[in-house]
Structures are given as C-alpha cells and as structure tokens.
C-alpha cells in the first residue's frame, strides 16, 4: 500500500522539518533569554529616567520631608515611613490569620467535620456523599484564594464605604479615652493608616496562607506520627513539631507577602489619606511610595525633572521590593530543598 510511505510519522525527518525544528528551538531559547532582558530593561529604564533627579537631589531626596512641585523641593521620607509602617502592620495582622488558616486547611478540620456529620447519617462511604469531605476542603481552599482575586480597586471602594464607617465609632472612643497612648495619638478622620493596613492585611492573607499551607503539607507524615506516638496532643504536635519543621517555608511566604504589601497601590491610594506626615498614630493620614506615584504621574507631563523625581521614587520602591522578593524567593528555595532531604 502506498499509504504507509506517505504517512507523516515513522520515517526520518526531512530537511525542512529539521530546519523548522532548529528555528523553533532557537525561538524558545531566545524568548527565555528575553525574560532576563525584559527584567534588566525594566531596571535600566527606570534608573535611566531617574538619573537627572538622582544627580540633582542626591541622597538628600531620601531624608527630605516635603514634596512641593511649585518650589521644586522633593523628599520621600514620609512615603518611605508610610510604606514600611503600613506593610508591617498589615503583615502583623495578615500573618497571624494567614498561618491560622493554613493550619486549619492542612489539618483537614473541615473534611473531618463533614465526615463526622455524614457518619451520623451512615453515608460516609456512599458513592456521592463520600466525596463531600474532600470537596468541602477544596471549596474552602478556593474561597481563601478568591480573596486574592478581587481587584485592589474594589477593595479600596469597599474600604471607603464599609470599613471606615465601621471603624469610626470605636476609633473615636479609643482616641478620646486612650489618647495618651502614641498609637491612638491623633483624631480619626476617616482615611488613615489603620483602615489602609487592615485592607492590606486582607489582600496579603491568601499569599501567606497558600505558601504556608504548602509548607505544612510538605512536612513528612512520619514526624507527625512519631509525635502522636509519643503521646502528644494535636496542638502539641503542631506547635513543637510541624510548625518548626515548616518554618522555613512559612517565613518565605511571609517575606513574599511583605514584598506584595510594599508594592500594593490602589487600595492604599484610596484609603491612606495621601498626606505627607510621619506619625506612629494608627489614625493619622499618611502616604506611601506607590500611592505617591499613582497620584502624581498623570500631571508630570513631559517635564524631565518632574518625571525624574517620580522615577527616582519608583526606583527606591523597586529597590526595596526587589530586595525583599529576592530574599523571599531564596528562603523558599532553601526551605523546599531542606525538606526534600528529610523524606
């Protein structure tokens, strides 16, 4: 039959096919390199555009406290303070809740609960109902991940119209009665550090819980079994065996979440108040680097110096976030490599 010789498979490749193969492989190779090039291009582009401002203002830019385009006086100390302060506050709230969620998910509480409920009805091994525990587990996991899917601008809108009115009464009370305490030192005016940090905490929680959950699940089961065998309760096992073993991964997740919080823009620009103040008070309006960029770039026009100072601020933000992200990625790489050896 003629069919077999004409068949496109089971014969050596023609010259054309070899050529296409080389071309395609070269293309993939160059696209991979292009990723590195894009990364480098971003860093160089921002630094290059910032150059006139760097030459003009130098390191004094980092410690200056005023931002006034009319007099040409620029400084970003309040923004650096606001960025770090809001991110650390958010990290504090977000990591406590994030780790609790990760433990809850990795211990399979919900699955056990559903299983027990099914057992009451005697259908725990039923063809349909028997799948319910694992379905409930994955539904919960997806719900937590959906928290990260909601756009940041929607969180900002929600913060303005829901969180701030909810917080108002208790925050005013806190200031009136405990105003001597530095954290409650200023009046609650609406937009400020606390609502911003609260919404930011919600936004970074899924990052922490997802990475921590992966780290907790990766702990070899024999460690848990050994601990139970010695007579430890569930939480003694979690606190003294599982969490310490997974601590590398959890810490990496927290560092990555910190990087995310530093660069988060819209929710902060809408909630933080955009005032150049340095204050430890939770109720005081503040500003962050990302919010500064979001608010001022539109008006910069083509004035080289105005664009330059914003690029300089962007460069500072980039330096901080890149450093945090690289450290986080390295910690995670180490943590997973370390766990592999324990298996």
């Amino acid at each position, binding site marked *: 039959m003629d069919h077999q010789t004409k068949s496109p*498979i*089971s014969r*050596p*490749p023609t010259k054309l*096919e070899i050529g*296409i*193969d080389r071309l395609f*492989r070269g293309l*993939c190779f160059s*696209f*991979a390199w*292009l990723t590195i090039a*894009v*990364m480098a*291009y971003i860093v160089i*582009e921002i630094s290059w555009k910032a150059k006139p401002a760097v030459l003009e203002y130098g390191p004094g830019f980092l410690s200056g406290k005023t931002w006034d385009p009319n007099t040409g006086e620029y400084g970003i100390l309040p923004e650096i303070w606001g960025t770090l302060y809001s991110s650390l506050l958010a990290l504090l709230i977000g990591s*406590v*809740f*994030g780790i*609790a*969620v990760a433990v*809850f998910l990795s211990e399979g*509480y919900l699955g056990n609960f559903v299983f027990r409920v099914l057992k009451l009805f005697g259908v725990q091994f039923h063809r349909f109902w028997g799948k319910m525990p694992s379905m409930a587990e994955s539904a919960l996991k997806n*719900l*937590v991940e*959906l*928290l990260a*899917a*909601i*756009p*940041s*601008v*929607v969180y*900002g*809108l*929600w913060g303005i119209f*829901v969180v701030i009115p909810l917080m108002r009464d208790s925050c005013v009370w806190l200031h009136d009665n405990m105003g001597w305490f530095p954290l409650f030192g200023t009046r609650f005016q609406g937009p400020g550090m606390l609502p911003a940090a609260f919404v930011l905490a919600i936004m970074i*929680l899924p990052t922490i819980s997802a990475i921590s959950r992966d780290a907790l699940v990766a702990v070899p089961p024999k460690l848990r079994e050994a601990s139970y065998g010695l007579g430890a*309760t*569930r*939480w*003694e096992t*979690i606190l003294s065996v599982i969490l310490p073993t997974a601590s590398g991964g959890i810490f990496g997740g927290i560092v990555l979440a910190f*990087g*995310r919080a530093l*660069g*988060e*823009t819209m929710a902060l620009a809408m909630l933080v108040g955009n005032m150049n103040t340095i204050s430890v008070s939770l109720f005081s309006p503040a500003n962050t680097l*990302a919010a500064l960029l*979001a608010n001022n770039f*539109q008006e910069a026009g083509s004035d080289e110096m105005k*664009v330059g100072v*914003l*690029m300089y601020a*962007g460069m500072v*933000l980039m330096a901080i*976030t*890149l450093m945090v*992200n690289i450290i986080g*990625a390295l910690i995670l790489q180490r943590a997973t490599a370390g766990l592999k050896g324990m298996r």
Partner: protein
Amino acid sequence: MASPQSERPVLTESDISRLERSLRKPRTLLSIMLSAVATIMTFMALVPLFSVVIMLFVKGGSKLTLENFYTLPPTAFEDGGGFGNALLGTILMVGIAALISVPFGIMAAVFLSELGKNSRTSSVVRFCAKVLSGFPSILAGVFAYGAVVLLTGKFSAYAGGVALSILMLPVVMLTAEEAIRMVPSRMKEASIGMGATQTQTLWYVTLPTALPGILTGVMLAVARAAGETAPLLFTALFSNFWLISRWNDVEPGQLNQPTASMAVLIYNFSSSFVDNQREMAWSASLVLVLVVLVTNLVGKSLSSKNGPQR
C-alpha cells in the same frame, strides 16, 4: 534488639491513667481550645470576601441596568449613563497584553521545562519570572510610561497593554512550565521513537496534552490583568468617549489615544461627590468582580478536571 523481659519498666496504675485522653487535663483542653481558635480565625478571614460580594450586589446590583453596558460615563450633572467604553477598553487592553504575553510566556515555558531543563540559563530565567511575579503593578506602569508613553508622546491603549503584559507574563510562564512538566515522559518518548523531531513532539504531543494547564495560567493571568488599575492610571489614562467612533473605519492608529478602563473608572468615580457617579462605581465593580471571579474559577476548574493522566 528487644530488651530482655526483666528490664521492661512496669506500668503502675497512675502511669496508665496518664496515657488516657481526658478532657480534664489542661493539655487536652488547650488543644481543643486552639482548634476552636483556628476554626474561628479561618471563618473570620472569609468574612471580608462575603462582605465585599454582598455589598457589591446590594449597592451595585440595585442600580445595574442593561443600558449601563452600551452608554458613556456620566458627567457630574448627568443622570444615567454607563460604562460601555470602559468595558470595551478593558477587553481591548487585556487582549493586547495577552497577544504579547501568551506566546512569549509559553515559548519561554517550553524552554524551561523541555529544551533547557536543567541548564543554568533556565534556573536564572525561572528566578527572573518568580521575581517578576512579585513585581509591584505600579512599577509596571512606571516602566510602560517611560518606555512607551514618553517615546510616543501619547497616553495610549498600547502603553496600557504593554504594562499589563508585564504582569501577565510570569503567571502564564510559570503555570505553563508546571503543566508541560506534568506530561508523562513516555508519551514524548513514544513520539520521538517514531522519528518525530523535538518540535513535532511538542506541537503534536506535549502542548496538546498540557493545554488545560496552560489555559489555566492564561485565564488566571487575564483575570489578574482585568482588575489591575495602577499600571493603567498613567499609561492608558481615561477617556469619556468611545475609542472607535465609527465601526466601519477602524484604523490601528485609533488605539493611539487615551483609553477608558473599568478599573480606572471605579477609581475615578469612587472619590466623586455626585451620587450617580458613586453608584456607577459600585455597578462597575460588580461587573468587574463577576468577570474576574468567573474567569478565575473557570481557569482553575480547567486544570483540576481534565489534567493529564500519568
């Protein structure tokens, strides 16, 4: 070796009771209490999600009409109006970003997972992609401003697309790499054994098998890009008019002007003092969140159901 019979410690009455699980013991109580705390905290963490969704339906759903989808945004003293041009602009810019980042990401993923599997290049590229995935979205906008807006001298849909593509690229690349890695090696070996070149193996065997996973990455990236505001603020800016005035003479040059997007519309109207505009922000948020969540869920279900079999 097992210890001799005589040396085995004898358990006394009190020792045996220590092995029992008793609710009166502080350590058991502590364990139960902490379990309860973890449960409560988990459900507290979900409260914002439900609060956001409920608020969107209450505030945005009540005012949402079909008219919203094909009319222009209202000015301060206008009634009615909609977000037709913003919806179109978002779709357009996400489309441009996908056109750039999807081929780029998949090709690079092919290199990472197949061609240069364990090379030093691939580990550097993977590291770059991971760092890019945590890159602040506003800096993508700053980059696009410097690279496109300053170069062309205009705010445009192209600049917005370039900014979004930088955010989509790592998502597409890293999920596609994972998906291609999951393809069983015996399928690839069978193909190569039949005399296929590596490219033919990729096109006819590996990529079709990994397609659900790759699509998951693309959908997740699209969902992320559609909701991004910060990179569009000063690249695409905003516009109160239709991007394309007449459908019968579409020119590519028309993309070279400020473009509206859903996310920027929400941002602009959220601080408005006019009730109508604020309500519009809620309605637009509802539409945006529904689109984003549905894309996200569909993308995730693609890879979990029809994942490649080992």
